[in-house]
Each structure stands twice: as structure tokens, then as C-alpha cells.
């Protein structure tokens, strides 16, 4: 049955997360941005709510909740502070990656610590991106070479969220350079392993409260059991990881859209020009109406995609819905951020108002996990019933790099 009404449990959870977002995150948004981290207090409060773990299997300390719940909660957090959605503690993308690519033993081994005491100080990361294409072939520069029953990792990974904070991460490397995208593999690496180095933290346009940096691998030796095989079909599992993670980003983008829209709506009610509230001019009112439709459409598409995964629809259908949701929600977030600043006029440009931050965050969100362009390629390939071209769909320096 088609229904748009969340379960009672979800509604309750959503309201407690909204409470946290509006009371603990929103008032501290500028403070956190300046400090370039979320305070331990706020991280602890989020951890106590179980945020960041809810979607993980129960076996590893998660709540085993579906994506429909996850996207609703991500939207709330991001409505409080989009940066916080990327900077709170927890396994984050590392969790999704382990669930999709790792074995049950690997999930238990690496994810259990996140659920234990002090979880608010633990971060995970996925080191996927690189900053330079390999001109002569498809794939990455970072390599993994077999040595006995171990692998030696060499190279540098860029645009890694939580590069500095994570104590455990998944590193993607080429095990077969001649095989292009088919020669890609994933390994779990601990930060304290010999040879692992962290590059300087980057300062970013938006979402700067999140830690972004690079990981340098100098002859890092990992055991074969740290390799994530991705079940029978590594490429499909990899796509699932990127699609689900991108869907969570789309949910955050929806939260950002909603907040930017609400702030703009309040502003056009109160700001007067030519003797009346500016919202009473058609040029302004129609823009507000367009952005309201953006929020509504983004949320519906995100819910639709989440429901497809939860219901176990065929992979192509899940990828199609996810592609639609991601590309729409990311572009809608940028429109909403832009509109909110525009309707504030000069005031919107000032840091006294939150909208300039939302606009910067919106641009940054568009470059997280999958871009609209990549999501469009994904949706088209799924719609045409084709083998998904990884090189066009996944973030690479050959097309567009993203922050994972």
C-alpha cells in the first residue's frame, strides 16, 4: 500500500533527534564551525541517542533499522547543522562500507568498538579518492601488492573525511593495475599501523567542521583477512555502498534545503520594502513556492529510494530510485541555499545570518560521495538495463572527485 505516514517508532525517534538538532546543534552551529569540530558534549548526546549506529546490524551493536528511518534522522540532524551530519562521531561511511563489502566476522571485528563506551570519540573513514588521474589507464595510483599472505599498500588517498580523526579506515587500492576498475580492492587499515601517515587537514568551502584530509601509505602491510571481498560480486557491492551512502547524503541535503527554505520563508514575512513584506511581491513569493516544491520533491524521492532498499527491490530498481533522489536532492539543496541568501539581500552575505553558511554547505554537499552527474549516469544505466560503467558513476579524478 502506498503510504506516506512513518511508523510510530520512527516518529518518536525523529522527534528526539530533532530535539537534539535544534537544541544542541543549531545554537552551537557557528561555534562548532569556528572550532572546526563538534563539541564532545554534543557528540556524547548524539551517541547516547544511538545516532550513527542505528542502521548497523544488531550483531555489531547497531539497531538494525532500515534506511527509511536513517534518512528521516539524517534530515533532522542536517536541518540543525549540515556540518554536524558529517562531523559527528561514529563509523559513518566506514560502517556502510563494512556492511556492504565485509564478511560478518569483519563487521563484528571492526564495528563493535563503535558501539562500546566512549563511542563518541571514535570515528571511521573510507579512503577512496585520489587527486590525480592515471593518464595511461583507468583506476587508481595506490596499489596493493601481494607478499606472502599479506598485502603491501603504497600510495596516497585524498579527500578523505575523518582522515585525521579516524582510527580505522577502509583503503581502496589497485591489486591489478592492468584490469582497470576490475582490479580495485578494499582493505581495512588501522591508523596506528606502521607506514600510515596523515596529510595536512584541508580547509573547505563548506562543511568545514568535518575533518578532511589525505592518507599517505608507505609500504603498509595488511593481512589478507583485512581485505574486504564484497561477497560474490565486488563491483555490485561497491555500487551498493556508494548508492546507500549517497542516499544518506541526499537526506542531509534535504535537511539543508528544508532549513534554508524555512529561514527564507520567515525572512520574507518580516523584511519590508516598498511598504510591504517582500513576500507579498510575486517575484519573491513564486521563488518561495518553487523552493517549497524542491523540499517536498527531494524528501519524497529520498523516501522512495530508501523504501526500495528496505523492501529488497531488485538492485537496478534501487539504483534507479537512488540515482533520482541523489541528483535531485543535491541540486535542490544548492538552489535552496542560493535562494535563501538571495532573498536576504546584502544581509544574506553577512555571517550574522545562517544562510551564507547553508549556501556554502550546499555546494560542499554536492561534492560528497556521488555528484548529481554521477547519480544521473547511475540512474540512466539502471533505466537502460545496462552494466553500470563504474568509471562514470564512481567519483574519480578522471571525472569528478568527491569527499567520501
Amino acid at each position, binding site marked *: 500500500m502506498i503510504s506516506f*505516514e512513518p511508523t510510530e517508532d520512527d516518529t518518536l525517534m525523529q522527534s528526539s533527534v530533532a530535539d537534539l538538532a535544534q537544541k544542541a546543534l543549531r545554537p552551537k552551529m557557528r561555534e562548532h564551525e569556528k572550532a572546526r569540530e563538534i563539541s564532545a558534549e554534543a557528540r556524547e548526546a548524539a551517541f547516547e541517542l544511538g545516532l550513527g549506529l542505528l542502521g548497523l546490524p544488531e550483531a555489531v551493536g547497531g539497531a538494525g533499522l532500515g534506511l527509511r528511518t536513517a534518512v528521516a534522522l539524517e534530515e533532522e540532524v542536517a536541518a540543525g547543522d549540515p556540518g554536524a551530519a558529517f562531523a559527528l562521531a561514529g563509523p559513518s561511511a566506514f560502517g556502510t562500507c563494512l556492511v556492504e563489502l565485509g564478511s560478518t566476522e569483519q563487521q563484528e571485528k571492526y564495528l563493535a568498538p563503535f558501539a562500546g563506551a566512549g563511542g563518541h570519540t571514535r570515528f571511521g573513514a573510507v579512503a577512496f579518492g585520489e587527486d590525480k588521474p592515471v593518464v595511461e589507464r583507468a583506476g587508481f595510483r595506490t596499489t596493493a601488492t601481494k607478499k606472502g599472505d599479506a598485502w603491501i599498500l603504497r600510495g596516497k588517498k585524498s579527500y578523505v573525511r575523518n582522515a585525521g580523526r579516524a582510527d580505522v579506515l577502509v583503503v581502496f587500492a589497485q591489486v591489478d593495475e592492468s584490469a582497470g576498475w576490475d582490479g580495485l580492492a578494499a582493505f581495512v587499515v588501522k591508523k596506528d599501523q606502521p607506514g600510515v601517515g596523515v596529510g595536512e587537514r584541508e580547509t573547505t568551502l563548506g562543511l568545514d567542521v568535518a575533518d578532511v584530509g589525505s592518507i599517505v601509505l608507505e609500504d603498509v602491510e595488511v593481512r589478507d583477512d583485512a581485505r574486504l571481498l564484497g561477497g560474490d560480486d565486488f563491483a555490485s557491492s561497491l555500487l551498493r555502498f556508494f548508492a546507500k551512502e549517497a542516499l544518506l547524503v541526499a537526506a542531509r541535503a534535504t535537511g539543508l534545503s528544508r532549513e534554508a527554505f524555512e529561514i527564507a520563508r520567515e525572512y520574507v514575512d518580516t523584511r519590508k520594502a516598498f511598504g510591504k513584506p517582500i513576500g507579498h*511581491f510575486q517575484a519573491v*513569493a513564486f521563488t518561495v513556492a518553487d523552493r517549497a516544491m524542491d523540499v517536498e520533491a527531494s524528501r519524497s524521492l529520498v523516501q522512495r529510494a530508501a523504501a526500495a532498499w528496505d523492501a529488497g527491490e531488485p538492485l537496478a530498481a534501487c539504483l*534507479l530510485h537512488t540515482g533520482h533522489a541523489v541528483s535531485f536532492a543535491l541540486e535542490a539543496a544548492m538552489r535552496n541555499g542560493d535562494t535563501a541568501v538571495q532573498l536576504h539581500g546584502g544581509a544574506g552575505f553577512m555571517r550574522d545570518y545562517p544562510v551564507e553558511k547553508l549556501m556554502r554547505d550546499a555546494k560542499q554537499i554536492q561534492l560528497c560521495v556521488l555528484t548529481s552527474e554521477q547519480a544521473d549516469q547511475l540512474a540512466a*544505466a539502471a*533505466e537502460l538495463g545496462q552494466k553500470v560503467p563504474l568509471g562514470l558513476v564512481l567519483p574519480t579524478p578522471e571525472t569528478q572527485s568527491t569527499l567520501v
Partner: protein
Amino acid sequence: MTIEFSLSKKQEFLRDSIQNLTKFVIRPQSLAWDKAHGIPETFLRQMATLNTSMTSSTKKESGEKEERGESTGNFGMKNLDTLLVTEELAWGDAALPLCMPGPGLGGPPVRGTGTPEQKKRYLGIFEDMSESLKYGAYALTEPGAGSDVAGIRTSCRKEGNDWVLNGRKCYITNGARASWNVVFATIDPSLGRAGHRAFVVEKGTNGFSVGRIEEKMGLRASETAELVLEDCRVSEDCLLGGEASYQSKEGFMTAMKTFDNTRPIVAAMAIGIGRAAYEYARDFVKENYALTRHVPRVAAIYERLAKVGRNLSAARLVTWRAGWMADHGIANAKEASMSKALGGQAAIAACIEAIEICGVEGTLQKDHQLLEKWFRDIKVYDIFEGTGQIQRIVISKRLITNLKSF
């Protein structure tokens, strides 16, 4: 309850049977109907038997709901069911949903504000259409009043127990063939909305005549008529809802209530046409842009296709939500307008892009007549039932405080 998008068994059955009909019966005749420039009467007669059986099988259920004051769509179906069916029908032929016999747009105001006698008298005639096709219609637009509905000039004045109507109505779907039209008129234009009255004018009434049948860009299988009222005299029991119901703003609200119910349906029609064009372009890409080897710029084509797909998908979900809200008794004026605005836009873009994706081939009537037909059919979906701009007025009034008018 939970958030989900799967169809019920009944809905699946409904959709599948209509898909069979559209694919094997309707779509193959679509171009011929367009060329014939008139409603596909033969086909509709064949269908009438099926409609009658559909109506009687669901009548009991819908009767109960109407007593409880819940809104029901066509044939006693729930709003959501109606949306699913409508999208499929429009996929089969863009004009067909507008040609379906029944009260049409005249239904909601009669159902919503008619007295019990009026409901029985005007809606009762549709119970049996085995002999002939029957229509109702909705006559609001005038040459001088389109979006500005409040500016209608068709006049009505009371004479004894009768009302006398004078004026012209235009662009009335099925207006010429309708057994009755809901005609909006004013007792005094200076009163604005408060002066509006809605009448049910039956075919054959003295002073009521049909003007010209319009030649249109698209939707040529739907009939659009001009209506002329010259000292058209109707008895006072033709005043919809009775005189007492016009003490408030009801008259105008009668017109508007119709739109809350019908805008999502019109959005579903648009989405059905847009989907038809989208699938056509998708199949064209599959067949012509070979993928066994690298084709230059294929990624750009993919991106165009995906943009069309996502906008249609977004519009469909917002439309479903508007229908779902109506089924659950939640006020949905804003969402109904959103669905109409998004559906119209997404579908127009779909029909334009489908031609672009196919290249100049897409404009050749010889090979791709459907594409050029949909391109002509779809434009009016951002115009009738409230233009895209009017939808934005409706939406913004519900978002911005104390916004009465611009």
C-alpha cells in the same frame, strides 16, 4: 502505518489490466484519433459496458463513503487509485482521460455543494450508460476571464422563480456534448467572488447554445467547445446548493474546491504523457546508440534522460502524496497545486527532451508521429486547471503570512 510505495493487490490488478488495454488497444489507435479530430466514440461505446460494471461494483462502497463525507474520485475509486489509473490511460492516449464519459469536472462541485435532490438528479444519469455515453462539464472560463476566475462577466438575474443567464463561456471540455454544464455567473461583477453563483444548465435549455468547436495544437481527440447563453432561463432549483449557501464566499469556493480534487488527477495525466515520451526516448537510445562500443557524447545523452526521469519521478511522488492526503481527509490544497505545477513542467520537459534525444528524426511525422503528437498534446498541461503561475500563487499563499493577493 509506515512509509511505503508498493501497490496493493487490487491496485496492481487495476494497473495491469489497464496497461494491457492501453498497450494493445488504445496506443495503436491514438494517432488515428488525433487525426480524426474528435472524441473516439466507437471505442468509448465499447468501453461503456465495462465502465457500467465498474461503477456498479464499486457503488456500494462509494455510497457509504460519501455519506461519511469522504471524497471519492471517479467511479467511487479512492483518489490514489484514480491517480494510478489516470496515469496509465494518459500513457495510452493523451486526450483519452478527458474524453471519459461521466460528470467530469462538473462532478466535484455537484458532489461537494449540491443539495441531495440535485446530486440525485444530475449524478443519477451516469449510473446507466449502456444506451448512450453521458457527460457533465464545467463552464467557468470566459474570453475575458482565464486565470482571473473572479473576473467572470456572465450575468445571472433573478426573475420570479427563475434565473436568467447571459454571457459566453469558452474552452469547455465536453461542453457541447454534456447533458449538463456547471455554469458560473455573477449577480454583480462589482461584488467579486461574493457575487458568484453556480448553476447546472441542462442541454436543450432555451437560450443555451453551442458556439464553435476549437481547433487545438494538441489533445485533438478531446472536444473543446464555446458555450453561448442568451437570456437562458433556468429554474431556481438549478442554482447549485440553493440560495442559502451563497451567503458566504461559497460560490467562489465551489469553483476552487473542484481544483483541490482534480489538480492531482490532471498532474497524473501529464505524468502519463511525459512517461510515454520518456520511455520512447529510452527505447530509442537503447536501439540506436549502440553500447557495444564507445559512442561519443553518450554520457551527455544519459544525463538528459536521467534528468527527465528524476523530474517525472518527483512529480509522481508529490502527486501520490496529494492523493494520499485527500484519501486520509488531510487538507491538500498546497500539495495539489504542487503536484500540478511539478507534473506539468516535468512532462513538458520530457516531451521536449524526448525529441532532442532522438535528434531531428524525432520531428519526422513519418516515423515518430507519437513524439510530435505528445509534444503538441502536453503544452496545455501547464495551462489548464490553473497555469503554473496560478499554482505558485496558491502555494505561496499557504506559505507566506497574510498574503491575500498581489
